[in-house]
């Protein structure tokens, strides 16, 4: 569905996307994970055929976006980072008018809109103006809107940024249903849990480059240990204690507020720390996540 080779975007003397290669297969749920400014949204805009590349090759649905931009866009569903719904129009009107941009007829749109409203769980808000919707409802409406043309690929740029946890989970549920039904998804996110939940395969981006590629599980197994122990001794003591326990676990990262110890058995490492006479202010044993992969690859956290 998408093939990118040496894809590059340069603004003046700033290289936003620096020669990346990736491909997305039909029915796959593909993620671009990285911190703000990593080049995810720029990559996304090139894939949505709304931004010209500076160099490299890009094929979307078998076509070059520079030659067949409008045709490609007509077959995609795009959920932009910032909602661009019309707040003066009602919920169903937003869906209707967006469908009209694709030249869809009233006959097609009338049942389709009801289907989409049900999918977005907005039945009670069907006739409400968009300005009356919560942030989560607006996101669901934007996703529903992107499905009006039955897109070959649904592209979502930071779909849950700015939403509260409950709204995020509702949205994930909707996206997961689409994934289950075989819709090809491309998602950018800086939330590792989102990437883990929704993506079959992802690329980790930083400073316009791909740092790693694979499924969430394979990335974690390749770049991190199964478990992580997080211990806090207070910002003054973390570095000092870290020196004394540096022999524990597979690897250690000392962050300003906590020490992370990567290990095969987290509980055993924590027991060893306490046995050595160190009593952390707080401690947590958890399984490794993509956040740890990113930290390992870049030396920075995703929300730096």
């Amino acid at each position: 569905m998408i093939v990118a080779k040496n894809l590059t975007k340069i603004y003046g003397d700033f290289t936003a996307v620096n020669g990346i290669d990736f491909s997305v297969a039909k029915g796959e749920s593909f993620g671009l994970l990285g911190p703000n400014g990593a080049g995810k949204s720029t990559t996304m805009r090139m894939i949505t055929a709304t931004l010209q590349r500076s160099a490299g090759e890009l094929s979307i649905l078998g076509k070059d976006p520079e030659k067949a931009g409008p045709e490609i866009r007509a077959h995609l569903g795009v959920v932009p980072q910032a909602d661009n719904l019309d707040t003066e129009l009602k919920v169903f009107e937003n869906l209707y008018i967006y469908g009209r941009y694709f030249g869809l007829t009233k006959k097609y749109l009338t049942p389709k809109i009801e289907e989409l409203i049900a999918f977005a769980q907005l039945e009670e808000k069907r006739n409400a103006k968009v300005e009356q919707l919560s942030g989560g409802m607006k996101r669901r409406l934007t996703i529903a809107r992107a499905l009006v043309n039955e897109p070959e690929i649904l592209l979502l740029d930071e779909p849950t940024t700015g939403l509260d946890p409950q709204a995020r989970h509702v949205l994930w549920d909707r996206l997961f249903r689409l994934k289950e039904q075989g819709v090809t998804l491309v998602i950018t996110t800086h939330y590792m849990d989102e990437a883990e939940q929704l993506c079959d395969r992802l690329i980790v981006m930083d400073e316009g480059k791909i740092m790693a590629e694979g499924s969430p599980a394979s990335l974690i197994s390749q770049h991190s240990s199964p478990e992580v122990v997080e211990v806090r001794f207070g910002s003054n003591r973390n570095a000092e204690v870290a020196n004394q326990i540096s022999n524990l676990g597979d690897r250690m990262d000392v962050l300003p507020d906590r020490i992370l110890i990567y290990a095969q058995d987290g509980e055993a490492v924590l027991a060893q720390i306490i046995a050595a006479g160190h009593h952390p202010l707080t401690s947590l044993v958890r399984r490794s996540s993509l956040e740890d992969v990113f930290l390992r690859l870049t030396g920075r956290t995703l929300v730096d």
Partner: protein
Amino acid sequence: MKNQTWRGASVVVDANKVSRFGALYAAEYRIRNMLKWWQAILAFDIGNPVLFLTSIGIGVGSLVDKHTAGSGPDGVKYLTFLAPALLATAAIQSTMEEVTFPVMHGFEWRKIFHGMYAAGLTGKQIAQGVLISAITKGTFAVIIYWVVLWIFHAFDSLRSLWLIPIQIYFGACFGCIIMAVAAYVKKDDNWFAMLNRFVVAPMFLFSGTFYALSTLPLTVRWVGWISPLWHATEVGRYFAYRSEMPLQMLLVHFGYLTFLGLIGLFIAHRKFAQRLAQ
């Protein structure tokens, strides 16, 4: 969502149809949005001419007619002299409203144009859609204004009906210029208020609207000559009551406004496309 009825965009969407009629789809959005305000638009389109004609047309008009024995500028009653200029102004103002703030709304405030662009419409189609909706609004305003003028006996010949398509056309030409300007505005900063204050208002005052342009000293008469409103008014006066106008002058008036309109449309096409692909 993706159930047995899901056929996929390659079946559902006809990309050729979008490439042919995209401008109409963009216009449909603007018109639908405009209809949300139809009461306000109708009230303005009726109230504006009625109030203006009552105060200036009849009020000032009776004063002028009294001092000129009903044979004022151009040898006709003042209201008749004024009417074509007012109709041209209404066309210009109505069209302009639809190509200023809605363009900001589309590019910046709600980013609606970005949604259209992502759906497959081109910058050119979106610009044309905005223009079509502006012409629709202008048509409505001009027809109502003409009817009010007729009721106020500003015209005595049905030949003045020609003014309706002509002023709609001139309003569209002017709209193209303003749309081109609006395509460059990234932050309002009272830009459109300044445009009204320093371009439209002087144009209204120095285009022979209230008096014949020939009565102005040559030092400021050029303002009228370059003003789209003066050209629109001159053509309007010919079709409203004048018996003749040299063909070459008619061509100059139409040619000048058409030229401005084409330049505006060309710039708007380019800037819309460029701004959406940034």
